[in-house]
C-alpha cells in the first residue's frame, strides 16, 4: 500500500467508495467488442450484454468512442437513467476499460455550492460592504425577492434553473416550481423565446439588464397577471427575475389607453368633419344656385331703364347677392382648410410652389379691382427669380388673395398697396403694406383668430379670411403676423420655409 496507508484502512476506503459510487465496468477488445463486465451496470441503465458484440451497439452512449487505440485515459460526465455518471475510458494493454462511477451526489453538491455562490453574489450586488458576506445576507436577499413578489431563478452550470428563496404566491399558482427547480421554457412560451436572447447575455456577462418587455398570463381563477422578465449576468452567476408588474405598469397602460382612445377619437372627428363637409357642400350648392340665378336677373335689370330709386335698390340687391356668394365661398374654404389642418400635411418637394410667381399672379389678377377703387397696387417682385417654398399652390394663392384684398379694404382712395418678397437663409417672407389708418396693436393680436372682425366699419365678411390664412400658413410650418407701420398704414406679413434650404 502506498503512502504507508495500512492495507485494512485502504480496504475500508475502497469499500466505502464502492458503496457510495456504485462502480461498474466493461472491457472491450481492439475491435471494440465486449469481453468482460461487472459491477452495478443496471444502475446506469445497462442491461444484459453479449460477449463478442460491439460495445457501442449495446451501450449507445459509447458510440464512436471505441476502440480507444492509443488515446490516453480520459473521462466525461453524463446523465443516464436519472443518475449522473463519471465515465472513465482507460486503455490497458490489449483491452479498453470503461469504468462508470456514480457522481450524482457530487453534481448535486456542486449545484448547491453554485446556488450559495449566486446568493452570496446577490448579497454583494445588493450593496453589502462585507467582502465575505454571511449566508444570512444571501438569505435576506432571497427573502427580499419574495417580499417584492419577484420570482428569482439562478441559472445552473448545466442550464437548468433553481429557485432562489421562496417563490411568491402568484408564481406558485402559475408555474410548476416543485423541489426548487424551474424550467422557464416549460413555464411559458414567452419565457422560452426570451431565453434565446438571455443566453448570450449571460454567456457574454453583459453588464446591463436585459428586459423581456411585458407579457400577460391567465391565472387559474380566470383573471390575468402582467409580468416582465429580466436577465442579469453576475460575475459568478446568472439570474432570471420574473416580476409581477404593478401600479407603475398600470399607470403606463392607462396612459397608453387614453392616448390611443384620443387618437381614435381624433380620427372619428376627422371622419365626422369630412361627412359634414360633404353635407355643407351640398347645402351651399343649393344656396348658391338661387343666388347665381338672382344675379343673372339683376344683371338683366341693369340693362333696363329704371327710376333712380329702383336703380339704387337693384344695385344694392346685386351687391348683397355677390356678398352672399363670397361668404359662402369663404366658409367653404375655411371648413376645408380646418379639416386639412387636422390631417397630416405631406409636403411634396417636387410640387413646391414658386412664391414669387404666385405673388406676381395674385397682383396681376387684382389690378382691375384696385383700379375701380382708385387704389394703386405695387408689386416689387416683377423681376425677381423663383423662390420655392413649403406649401401648396392653390392655397397659397388664396392666402395672397385674402391679404391683398384685406389691404384694399382699408386703403383710402389715392393710396397704394405694396406687395414684396424677401428671401433669407431660413425663411422667405411676403409683406403686404397698405397706407390706411394702421391697425390697433391690440387688434393685431387677435385679428387672425376665428370669426375675428376687422377694423372700424370696414369689417370683413365672415371673419374667416385671415383665420384661413393663419391655419394654412401654420400648417406648412410658417408664421404670420401684422403690425402698424411707423409712418402710418399696416403691414401684414407671412413667412414660409424654402423648399430647398
Amino acid at each position, binding site marked *: 500500500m502506498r503512502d504507508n496507508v495500512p492495507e485494512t484502512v485502504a480496504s475500508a476506503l475502497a469499500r466505502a467508495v464502492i458503496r457510495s459510487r456504485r462502480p461498474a465496468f466493461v472491457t472491450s477488445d481492439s475491435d471494440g467488442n465486449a469481453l468482460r463486465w461487472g459491477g452495478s451496470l443496471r444502475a446506469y441503465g445497462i442491461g444484459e450484454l453479449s460477449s463478442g458484440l460491439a460495445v457501442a451497439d449495446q451501450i449507445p452512449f459509447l458510440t464512436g468512442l471505441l476502440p480507444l487505440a492509443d488515446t490516453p485515459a480520459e473521462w466525461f460526465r453524463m446523465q443516464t437513467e436519472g443518475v449522473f455518471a463519471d465515465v472513465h475510458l482507460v486503455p490497458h494493454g490489449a483491452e479498453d476499460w470503461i469504468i462508470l462511477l456514480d457522481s450524482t451526489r457530487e453534481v448535486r453538491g456542486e449545484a448547491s455550492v453554485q446556488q450559495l455562490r449566486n446568493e452570496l453574489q446577490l448579497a454583494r450586488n445588493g450593496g453589502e460592504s462585507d467582502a465575505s458576506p454571511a449566508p444570512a445576507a444571501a438569505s435576506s436577499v432571497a427573502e427580499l425577492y419574495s417580499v417584492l413578489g419577484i420570482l428569482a431563478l439562478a441559472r445552473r452550470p448545466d442550464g437548468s434553473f433553481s429557485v432562489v428563496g421562496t417563490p411568491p404566491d402568484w408564481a406558485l399558482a402559475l408555474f410548476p416550481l416543485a423541489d426548487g427547480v424551474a424550467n422557464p421554457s416549460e413555464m*411559458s412560451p414567452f419565457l422560452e423565446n426570451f431565453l434565446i436572447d438571455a443566453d448570450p447575455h449571460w454567456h457574454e456577462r453583459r453588464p446591463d439588464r436585459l428586459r423581456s418587455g411585458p*407579457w400577460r398570463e391567465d391565472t387559474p381563477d380566470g383573471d390575468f397577471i402582467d409580468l416582465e422578465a429580466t436577465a442579469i449576468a453576475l460575475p459568478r452567476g446568472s439570474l432570471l427575475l420574473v416580476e409581477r408588474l404593478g401600479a407603475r*405598469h398600470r399607470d*403606463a397602460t392607462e396612459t397608453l389607453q387614453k392616448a*390611443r382612445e384620443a*387618437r381614435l377619437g381624433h*380620427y372619428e372627428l376627422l371622419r365626422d368633419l369630412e361627412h359634414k363637409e360633404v353635407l355643407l357642400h351640398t347645402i351651399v350648392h343649393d344656396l348658391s344656385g338661387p343666388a347665381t340665378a338672382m344675379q343673372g336677373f339683376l344683371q338683366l335689370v341693369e340693362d333696363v331703364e329704371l327710376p333712380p330709386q329702383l336703380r339704387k335698390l337693384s344695385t344694392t340687391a346685386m351687391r348683397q347677392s355677390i356678398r352672399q356668394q363670397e361668404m359662402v365661398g369663404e366658409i367653404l374654404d375655411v371648413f376645408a382648410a380646418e379639416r386639412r389642418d387636422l390631417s397630416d400635411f405631406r409636403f411634396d418637394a417636387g410640387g413646391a410652389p414658386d412664391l414669387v410667381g404666385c405673388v406676381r399672379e395674385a397682383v396681376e389678377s387684382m389690378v382691375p379691382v384696385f383700379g375701380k377703387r382708385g387704389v394703386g397696387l405695387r408689386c416689387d417682385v416683377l423681376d425677381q427669380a423663383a423662390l420655392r417654398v413649403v406649401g401648396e399652390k392653390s392655397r397659397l394663392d388664396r392666402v395672397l388673395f385674402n391679404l391683398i384684398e384685406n389691404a384694399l379694404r382699408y386703403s383710402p382712395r389715392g393710396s397704394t398697396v405694396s406687395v414684396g418678397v424677401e428671401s433669407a437663409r431660413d425663411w422667405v417672407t411676403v409683406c403686404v403694406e397698405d397706407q390706411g389708418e394702421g391697425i390697433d396693436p391690440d387688434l393685431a393680436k387677435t385679428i387672425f383668430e376665428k370669426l375675428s372682425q376687422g377694423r372700424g366699419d370696414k369689417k370683413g365678411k365672415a371673419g374667416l379670411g385671415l383665420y384661413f390664412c393663419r391655419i394654412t400658413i401654420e400648417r406648412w410650418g410658417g408664421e404670420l403676423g401684422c403690425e402698424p407701420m411707423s409712418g402710418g398704414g399696416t403691414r401684414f406679413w407671412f413667412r414660409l420655409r424654402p423648399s430647398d434650404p
Partner: protein
Amino acid sequence: MAATQKKICMLGAFAVGKTSLVQRFVDGLFSEKYLTTVGVKIDRKVVAVEARGDVNLILWDLQGEDDFNNLRATYLRGASGHLIVADGTRGATLETAIRLRDLAAEMTPGAPCLLVVNKSDLRSSWEIDDKQLSALSEDGWCWLTTSALNAEGVEAAFEKIAAMVTQ
C-alpha cells in the same frame, strides 16, 4: 397522436381588433370596449386541418403598432405564420399591415402571412375598398374579411392560417 404546435403572431396597427379576434376564436366572446394590449398575450387553441390532423395554434397577440409602441422583432422569432390584421374603417391600418408583412418576411422567411381585414360589420364605413384588396391579391397577398363582433369569418381566418402553416 399529439397535435402539432404552431406559433402564430397577430400583427397590426392598434385597435384593429387583434385581441378581439383571438378572444372570439378562443373563448367565443366579444367586448365592445377597446382595451389596449401592452406587450404580449399568448393563447392556445387546437384546430383540425384537413388531411393534416390537429394543429395546436399558439397565438401570440402582440401589442398594436403606433407612434407610442413599436413591435419587438424578437417576438416574431420561431413563428410559423402571421395573421396580419387591418381595420377596414381605417385605411391607414392597411399601410401598417403592409409594413408589418415586410418585417415578418425579414424575421421569419418563408412563414406565410394572412391578411385579415376586420370590422366587416361596419362595411358601409370602410375606407379600404375592393380595388385596394384586388391590388393586394395581384401582389400575392392572401386575405379575407372578418368581424370579431358578429364572428363572421373568424373561424375561417384561423383555420386558413392553420392550413397555410401546415402545408
